[in-house]
């Protein structure tokens, strides 16, 4: 079994395992970038500054991917505990709805109102995450069921908050700069994405939390017997996922200046799961790769632009995505790689049909 067990977490082995996991997603990302550069020229990758904000195609992709990145990072932690969180899209909508609605009811241009709105939205998102985690950890509800409840009900809740309308925040409110602004020319969503990424990496890799998460996901019962408070860890993972989803909703709403309870972050949970899997974290729990997830998000974001740049019609959107995901999934499978490379490895003289191999193998 290649699936890393918590035992082999020694420095060197870990680094090379890391690289192996990340190599294939990186190759796919590079290929996508090359395709785009070939079609649209180097302008694609070279950032330009406009209105004091970095722009250009690739920077725009990163900026637009920030909400998906946040959600995918949260999802990575949840998946590490052998769970899954389907409610993140709904929490995205709830976070966006709370923030926008609160600002609309107050003084739109007041910084204090905006700060309170964002804090309130994040607090409720955290609460929802903790609720999900508690259902999974303490009441033994299967993660897919526990979070499915809010996936279905969440958008209804968001609609109740917005009164079925799409609340729009004025363009001069400080709120919109969370989505559109820039600090030292770097767009704010990118800054938030990097900050959350750094915080989670520090939290999971410099403290024992990462190891605890992996051991809980690897074997909850053994972890409990080893004295790890598995339930608390699980709740924490869902809570972080909730906050990330709420924050993503805030960025999305700030970008548009409005909160669409029905369509905001629609199906983002599936893209997030996809990004996590592309990034090398398996749905079985245990080892997780925050860097891999980030690359996965970049692949998904770049892919959407590639479809337009290459000139594929909109009917191709889903098919093209499926093809790329298929390629990444296949590349990551050691069995598939071995199967593909087999004719080259056996060498010319001993070239035997594949069907004979299983018989030969035991003889050796």
């Amino acid at each position, binding site marked *: 079994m290649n699936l890393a067990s918590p035992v082999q977490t020694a420095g060197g082995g870990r680094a090379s395992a890391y690289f192996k996991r990340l190599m294939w997603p990186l190759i796919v990302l590079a290929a996508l970038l090359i395709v785009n550069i070939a079609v649209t020229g180097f302008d694609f990758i070279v950032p330009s500054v406009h*209105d004091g904000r970095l722009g250009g*195609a690739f920077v*725009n992709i990163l900026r637009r991917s920030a909400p998906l990145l946040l959600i995918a990072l949260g999802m990575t932690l949840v998946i590490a505990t052998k769970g899954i969180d389907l409610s993140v899209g709904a929490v995205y909508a709830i976070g966006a709805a709370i923030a926008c609605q609160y600002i609309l009811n107050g003084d739109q241009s007041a910084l204090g109102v905006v700060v309170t709105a964002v804090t309130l939205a994040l607090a409720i998102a955290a609460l929802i995450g903790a609720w999900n985690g508690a259902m999974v950890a303490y009441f033994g509800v299967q993660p897919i069921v526990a979070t499915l409840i809010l996936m279905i009900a969440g958008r209804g809740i968001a609609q109740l908050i917005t009164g079925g309308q799409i609340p*729009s925040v004025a363009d001069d409110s400080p709120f919109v700069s969370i989505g559109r602004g820039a600090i030292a020319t770097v767009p704010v969503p990118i800054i938030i994405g990097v900050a959350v990424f750094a915080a989670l990496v520090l939290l999971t890799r410099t403290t024992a939390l990462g190891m605890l998460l992996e051991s809980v996901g690897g074997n909850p019962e053994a972890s409990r017997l080893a004295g790890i408070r598995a339930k608390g860890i699980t709740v924490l993972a869902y809570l972080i996922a909730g906050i990330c989803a709420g924050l993503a909703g805030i960025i999305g709403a700030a970008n548009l200046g409005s909160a669409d309870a029905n369509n905001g972050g629609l199906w983002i949970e599936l893209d997030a799961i996809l990004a996590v899997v592309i990034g090398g974290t398996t749905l079985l729990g245990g080892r997780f790769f925050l860097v891999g997830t980030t690359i996965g998000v970049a692949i998904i974001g770049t892919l959407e632009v590639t479809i337009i740049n290459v000139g594929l019609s*909109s*009917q191709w959107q889903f098919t093209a995505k499926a093809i790329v995901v298929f390629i990444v999934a296949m590349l990551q499978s050691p069995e598939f790689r071995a199967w593909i490379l087999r004719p080259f490895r056996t060498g010319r003289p001993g070239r035997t049909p594949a069907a004979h191999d299983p018989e030969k193998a035991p003889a050796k």
Partner: protein
Amino acid sequence: MLKKTLAGIATGALLLGAAACGGGDDEGGGGSDGLVVGFAQVGAESAWRTANSDSVRDSADADDRIADLQFVDAQQQQEKQIEAIRNFITQKVDVIVLAPVVETGWTDVLTDAEQAGIPVILADRGIEEADEDLYVTRIGSDFVEEGRKAGTWTVEEFAENETTGILQLEGTVGSAPANDREAGFFEILDGEDFSYELVDSQSGDFTAEGGKAVMETFISTHGLEDIDLLYAHNDEMGLGAIQAIEEAGYEPGTDIQIIIVDGSKAGFQAGVDGKLNYIVECNPVFGDQLMDLVVQVADGADVEKFTPVVEDAFGVDEFEAELPNRQF
């Protein structure tokens, strides 16, 4: 709004109760003063839909010929609509109005309605062709005609251009409004002797988020120098695209002309602000027209299979005057 939602839930609960009791009550049904109408609405998923619900309710209230409108909000679930229709049948309403959530799966319940002798009118959306005999008429927007209006304006506006560069923001792939608005638009452009180039066309999924993201990519890929016109299949996408255009340092409405379909308050406001150039209306306020149709159908009059909603289109000069009239 909360009150309205609660009222909706209460109505649902009442209906459920009625079903549970076996519908023994003998109320409703061909009463002497006025018709009883059951309306299974999709939900409250958009401002357009809310305006539509309000319009139908208001018109029913104001109309003497209608005794009662049983309004059911199906929260975008077909099961709830089917349940609502079964309740309407049990209650022996005079006419059933259905705004179907999806196109398929209506054969059984609509056959039941037919056997009970209750005529069915579809509102807004259609159902699959195999079930065409199961309803009397469909009242709704003529999406192809909406596309044609946008096309006609384009042909006139850019008549003097040598060639016109066009970007299109499509609605959700495969949806009827997206297909038809595209078809109607290009039917006019191709029909007239008009030189144009469709520089790019992608789906923005009818959302502001999608419209903005796709427009950003359009701008970074094609630039706006050779683009004269943006045609957005709804106003959410158009409004998103306007943000993208502004953030890229261009002036929407001037550097690039913009047509949107729908005509919400937000859309008209953008028009008043000079950010777009033509609005094709997709009118949700067809309550009065629907009530007339209900009465005709209840009287057994012959009606066309499709009843287009009266819809308009607005140019730059008309935005300001029209803005206060917008219902959604």
